[in-house]
């Protein structure tokens, strides 16, 4: 009885849990990656107690993989030694951690997953409570198998209608970021529902959960339904049976209603994710780098949309266009279906799956004065390299159209 987060917490706790209550929960899976694992190892060593269950632990290399420099290589070597020493066998270097977590079946409706990465919230799209934490807490959870949470109040986001051609869930989510602001959901859960969400395929639903943290939210949940179950069965290694549940007589702190029907393509302007405008208002702004990738928008369908626009065309001569599939699985499917060929023939650079460019590690670092248009979720100052570079966020379609013209371009003219 309650909001989605209250439902999940109550099921896990075996009693009724309400917003405001602080509880200790058993977690299913504890995720970390090459960037955040070293500090977790340090915390774990300092606690000085054994790992509770090595099979609860999942470690990914994706933030700087393959290692772009000696420091990163040594860092990864230390993590590999630690995994061998502790008998940790769930190790992946097959793309962006969040996509791989879903594909490999660690994400289930009603589950509780914590991760040393803020975008761990992504799994909420499959009805899984998942949230980002710092490394010390991950090291602590290795020992305890548990984590404390203050049960959050929920803001309901009711999205009705159907988007026009050329408008995607990324545009809707950016619009919402503009409405709520960067701290509009701090300490809160977001719940997405409405006719728009119910008809939305999983790859588009994931964008809402992924970017919930951009509004400060603890999690961004969507009730599991037939689309969720079909996705789990067809696209992941998760084993049934799966729990299906919904909010029961929920009490929301606030309800935000948006009719998506009239929405046009949106853009988040440098340097904050809530600096959102209709894309046409900044059309024509020259762009040095287009980056189609990350845990937000580098799934197969995103690449398909971009390839549909790039097919048979050439990207602008002086614009770097980087395409980074979110996972090896996506890369393989994109190759089999000819998308990679489309990108290469259009003049794009196809990178190994991972997220190095999103945080200025490698594979697309920006120089001073450069301007990027990307499918990322963040456009903070200095995020992709120089603090004098600018980052604009939009949909994969807008990124592809922008790549063709070397300046911000409304994707609808290429549909």
């Amino acid at each position, binding site marked *: 009885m309650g909001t989605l987060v209250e439902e999940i917490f109550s099921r896990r706790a075996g009693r009724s849990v309400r917003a405001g209550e*602080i*509880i*200790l929960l058993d977690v299913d899976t504890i995720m970390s990656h090459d*960037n*955040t694992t*070293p*500090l977790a190892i*340090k*915390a774990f060593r*300092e*606690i*000085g*107690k054994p790992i509770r269950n090595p099979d609860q632990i999942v470690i990914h290399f994706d933030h*700087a993989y393959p290692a772009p420099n000696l*420091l*990163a290589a040594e*860092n990864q070597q230390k993590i590999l030694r630690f995994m061998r020493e502790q008998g940790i066998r769930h190790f992946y270097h097959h793309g962006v951690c969040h996509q791989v977590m879903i594909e490999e079946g660690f994400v289930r409706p009603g589950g509780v997953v914590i*991760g*040393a*990465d*803020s975008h*761990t919230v992504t799994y909420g799209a499959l009805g899984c409570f998942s949230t*980002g*934490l*710092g*490394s*010390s*807490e991950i*090291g*602590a959870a290795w*020992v*305890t198998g*548990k984590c*404390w949470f*203050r049960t959050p109040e929920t803001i309901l986001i009711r999205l009705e209608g159907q988007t026009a051609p050329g408008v995607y869930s990324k545009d809707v989510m950016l619009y919402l970021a503009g409405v709520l602001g*960067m*701290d509009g959901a*701090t*300490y809160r859960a977001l719940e997405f529902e409405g006719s728009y969400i119910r008809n939305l395929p999983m790859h588009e639903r994931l964008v809402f959960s992924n970017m919930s943290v951009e509004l*400060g939210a*603890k999690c961004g949940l969507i009730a599991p339904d037939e689309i969720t179950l079909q996705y789990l069965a067809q696209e992941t290694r998760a084993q049934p049976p799966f729990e299906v549940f919904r909010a029961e007589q929920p009490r929301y702190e606030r309800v935000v209603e948006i009719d998506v029907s009239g929405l046009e393509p949106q853009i988040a302007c440098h340097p*904050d994710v809530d600096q959102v405008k209709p894309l046409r208002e900044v059309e024509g702004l020259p762009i040095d780098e287009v980056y189609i990738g990350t845990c937000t928008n580098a799934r197969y369908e995103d690449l398909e949309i971009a390839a549909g626009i790039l097919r048979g065309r050439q990207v602008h001569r002086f614009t770097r266009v980087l395409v980074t599939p979110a996972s090896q699985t996506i890369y393989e499917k994109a190759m089999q279906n000819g998308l990679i060929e489309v990108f290469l023939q259009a003049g794009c650079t196809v990178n190994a799956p991972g997220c190095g460019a999103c*945080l*200025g*590690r490698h594979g697309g670092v920006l120089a001073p004065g450069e301007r990027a248009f990307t499918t990322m979720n*963040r456009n*903070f*100052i*200095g*995020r992709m*390299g120089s*603090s004098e570079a600018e980052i604009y966020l939009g949909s994969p379609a807008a990124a592809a159209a922008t790549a063709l013209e070397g300046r911000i371009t409304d994707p609808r003219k290429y549909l």
Partner: protein
Amino acid sequence: MGRAWKFGENLNTDEIIPARYNITIDEKELAAKAFCEIRPEFAAQVQPGDVIVAGRNFGCGSSREHAAVAIRGTGVQCVIAPSFARIFFRNAINIGLPILECPQAVEIEDGDQIEVNLSRGEIRNLSQGKVYPANPLPAFVLKIVEAGGLVRFLREHDIEELTS
């Protein structure tokens, strides 16, 4: 007593320390790069006992603990803001970096002399002659703070003791 270093709203983890410097976990190395993009003089001039005062939503963005560790490494005694992003809030508590949530802190100006009483949650602005109360921390969070962070707490206690 210490000097107030005033920052704006929505200060994110990349501004606290850019991702490219997070390859190390050495506290002093991280501290040397704290706020390097937005306030390059900070790391060289900050003194132990100084305080960081910021606008709402301090520490938004990444989960990386390096941001909280970098601040702790500079020797500042406390971060004061009207609100913190939730992961940063937890990270600070977990590593023993004192933080105070205080809506009135926006009145503090850069360079003001500040005295903080952490146990009372009281902020004294000696330059302006004002006293601001901070929001009290929940009891179980105080247990972590009093132990000096989550790691130290778990060395001595079981996690169940947090919520009991």
